[in-house]
C-alpha cells in the first residue's frame, strides 16, 4: 500500500499539488476581487494582464520541455503560439463580422442569401487589404469546432514537417536554433504579405468580442478567460510533469545530455525529439488560442523571431529544466515588464537627464539577463531550489 503511494505521480512530483493550489487560490482570489464577479478591487484590465500572463506561463512550460528537458533551443515556439491565435481569431472575426452583417441586412428589401452574406463578410474583413473574396484558408472559419481543431492541427503539422526534416538530417545545437528562427521569420514574412489571406500586417482584430456574447460585458468575459487560462495552465503543468517524471522523461533528458549514447541504447532519438517538438508546439498553440481573445488583436509582428527569443529568456531567467522555473520566469518577467512599461513607476530626474523607465527597462532586462546567464545559470528556479534544500537540511538536523 505504502509503496503504491510512493510510486504515485503526486508523491514523485510534490510541486504539482503546491502549484495547483497556488493557481487555484490566485484564480479564486482574483475572481472575488474582480469587477465582473466580486467586489471590484481589481480592474478588468489587470484581470486581462493576469490571464495573458498565465498563457505566457503555459507556453513557457512548453519551451522548458523542449529546451530545458530535450535540449532543443527552439526559437520558433512563438510561431506556433501565433498560429494558434490566428486559428481561433479566424473564427472570432468571421463569426462576429457575420453577425454584424446579418444585422445590417435586416432591413434590406429581400432577405439576404448565404452568398450575399458571404460576400458582405468578405468585403468587411478583406476590404482593408483591397480584397473581397474570402480565401480558401477561411473555408472552415464559420465553424468554431473545426477552427479549434485547427488550433491543434495546423501548428502540430507545421512542427511535424519542420521537425521531421530538421531531426532527420541531424541538425543540432545552434544550427537547429537558427533553423527554427528561420522558420519563424519565414512564417512572419509570409503573414506580412497582403495576399497571405490573413489580412497582412493588419492582422486580425476585435478578437475580444466573442460572437453571440455581445451582451456580456468584458468585466465578466475577462474572468472567464482567466479561468480558462488557469485551467489550461494547470493541465499543462500536470501533463508536463507527467511527461518528464517517468521513463519517457528519463530518455528525453538523456537525449539532451548525450544524444549519440541514447542512439546506441537502441532508442530512435529522432522520433522522441519529434514527439516532444510536436507536443510542445501544440501546447504553445493552445496557449496562443487562449491569449489572443484576451489581447484582442493579433498581427504578424507578434510572430517575429524576437518574440521566440524572449520566450527563451523567460525560461532561462526562471531556470530551465524545472517546470515551475519556467512558470516563475514567464510570470515574473512579463509582470515586471508591464509594471515598468506601464508607466506606474515615477521617472527619476537627475537634473541633466531624466530616467524614463519605459526607455530603460529593456536595457535593464538585457543586461540583467546577461548577468543571470553568467552568475546564476540555473535562474530564479535554482535559487528557489537552494532555499528549499536549505530548509530541508535544517529540518533533518
Amino acid at each position, binding site marked *: 500500500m505504502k509503496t503504491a503511494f510512493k510510486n504515485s505521480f503526486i508523491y514523485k512530483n510534490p510541486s504539482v499539488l503546491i502549484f495547483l493550489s497556488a493557481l487555484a487560490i490566485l484564480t479564486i482570489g482574483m475572481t472575488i476581487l474582480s469587477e465582473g464577479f466580486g467586489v471590484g478591487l481589481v480592474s478588468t484590465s489587470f484581470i486581462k494582464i493576469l490571464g495573458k500572463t498565465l498563457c505566457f506561463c503555459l507556453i513557457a512550460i512548453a519551451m522548458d520541455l523542449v529546451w530545458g528537458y530535450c535540449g532543443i533551443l527552439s526559437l520558433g515556439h512563438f510561431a506556433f503560439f501565433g498560429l494558434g491565435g490566428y486559428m481561433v481569431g479566424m473564427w472570432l472575426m468571421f463569426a462576429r463580422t457575420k453577425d454584424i452583417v446579418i444585422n445590417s441586412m435586416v432591413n434590406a428589401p429581400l432577405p439576404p442569401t448565404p452568398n450575399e452574406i458571404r460576400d458582405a463578410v468578405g468585403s468587411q474583413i478583406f476590404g482593408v487589404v483591397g480584397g473581397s473574396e474570402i480565401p480558401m484558408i477561411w473555408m472552415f472559419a464559420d465553424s468554431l469546432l473545426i477552427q479549434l481543431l485547427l488550433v491543434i492541427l495546423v501548428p502540430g503539422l507545421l512542427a511535424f514537417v519542420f521537425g521531421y526534416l530538421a531531426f532527420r538530417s541531424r541538425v543540432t545545437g545552434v544550427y537547429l536554433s537558427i533553423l527554427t528562427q528561420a522558420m519563424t521569420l519565414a512564417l512572419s514574412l509570409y503573414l506580412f504579405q497582403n495576399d497571405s489571406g490573413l489580412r497582412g500586417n493588419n492582422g486580425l482584430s476585435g478578437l475580444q468580442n466573442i460572437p453571440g456574447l455581445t451582451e456580456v460585458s468584458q468585466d465578466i468575459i475577462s474572468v472567464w478567460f482567466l479561468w480558462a487560462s488557469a485551467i489550461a495552465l494547470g493541465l499543462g503543468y500536470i501533463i508536463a510533469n507527467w511527461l518528464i517524471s517517468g521513463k519517457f522523461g*528519463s530518455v528525453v533528458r538523456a537525449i539532451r545530455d548525450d544524444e549519440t549514447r541514447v542512439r*546506441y541504447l537502441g*532508442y*530512435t532519438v529522432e522520433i522522441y525529439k519529434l514527439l516532444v517538438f510536436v507536443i510542445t508546439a501544440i501546447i504553445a498553440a493552445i496557449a496562443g488560442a487562449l491569449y489572443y481573445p484576451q489581447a484582442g488583436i493579433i498581427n504578424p509582428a507578434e510572430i517575429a523571431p524576437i518574440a521566440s527569443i524572449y520566450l527563451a529568456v523567460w525560461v532561462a531567467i526562471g531556470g530551465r529544466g524545472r517546470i515551475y522555473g519556467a512558470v516563475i520566469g514567464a510570470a515574473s518577467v512579463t509582470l515586471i515588464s508591464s509594471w515598468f512599461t506601464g508607466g506606474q513607476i515615477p521617472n527619476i530626474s537627475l537634473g541633466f537627464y531624466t530616467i524614463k523607465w519605459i526607455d530603460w527597462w529593456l536595457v535593464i532586462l538585457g543586461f540583467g539577463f546577461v548577468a543571470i546567464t553568467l552568475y546564476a545559470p540555473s535562474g530564479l528556479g535554482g535559487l528557489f531550489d537552494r532555499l528549499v534544500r536549505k530548509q530541508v537540511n535544517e529540518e533533518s538536523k
Partner: protein
Amino acid sequence: MQEASLLELEGVSVSFDGFKAINNLSFQIGSAELRAIIGPNGAGKTTMMDIITGKTKPDNGSVLYGTPAKSLLRLSESQIARIGIGRKFQRPTVFENQSVFDNFLMALKKSRSPLDVLFYRLENTDLERVKVLAEEVGLHEQLERTSGELSHGQKQWLEIGMLLAQDPKVLLVDEPAAGMTPQERMHTTNILKKAAQTRAVVVVEHDMEFVRRLECRVTVLHEGSVLAEGSIDHVTNDESVIDVYLGR
C-alpha cells in the same frame, strides 16, 4: 575449429579525405566468444566499431550479422542496437544527471517505441532484473545515487552493466580498463569473461596485461587491416607485430 560466425566483416574499406582508415578489413566472431583487439593509435579500432554500429558507412565491403545473415549497412545506429549489438565508448558515457537506477532502466531490454516508453510502469520483474544486473557489476548499493557522483571505475561498470541490460548478442567494449585501479581491473575482467559465456564480446584494449588476463583470441590491427590473429602468446611472438607495436 570455429562455429558459424555471428558477426562478419568482409573486405571493408573506408577512407576520410583520402586517408584509408580501414583497408580491406575482414573479421569474424562467434556467438559466444571473447575477443581482444589491439593495435597502435590510428590502426582503425574505433573506426571498425563505428562501422559495425552504423555510425560510419564503409565505402565498400559487407557487414553481416546473425543467422540468417543480415547486412547491417542499411540500418541506423538505433536499429543496430535494437537487434542486439551493444557498444561501450572509450570515455565512460553514462547519464550523469540521472540516478544509477534510471540509467539501468533506460538500458533494460524493453520496447523502445515512444508510446510504450511513455506509458511504461515499473514492474517487479524489471526491478528484480535491475537489482541482479547491479549486483553483477557491483553497483547494487549505489542504485539511488546520481550517477555523476560515481567514481570513474564505477561509471565504467555502470556502462558495462547498462550494456548487459540491453541483453545484446554482440558486445563491443572500447578500453574498459582505462583509468582503473588494479582491483577494479580484476573485477572488470571477471565481468567481461562472464558475459562472454553467453554472447560475443569484443574488447579493444591497449593494456597488454589486461588483455593477457582475458585469456582469449587476440586480433592485431595495423593501418586498417588485420596484421595477426591468434592466442596472446602467438601474436606477441609474431615478428611483424613486434615491429609495429610491441617493439616500441
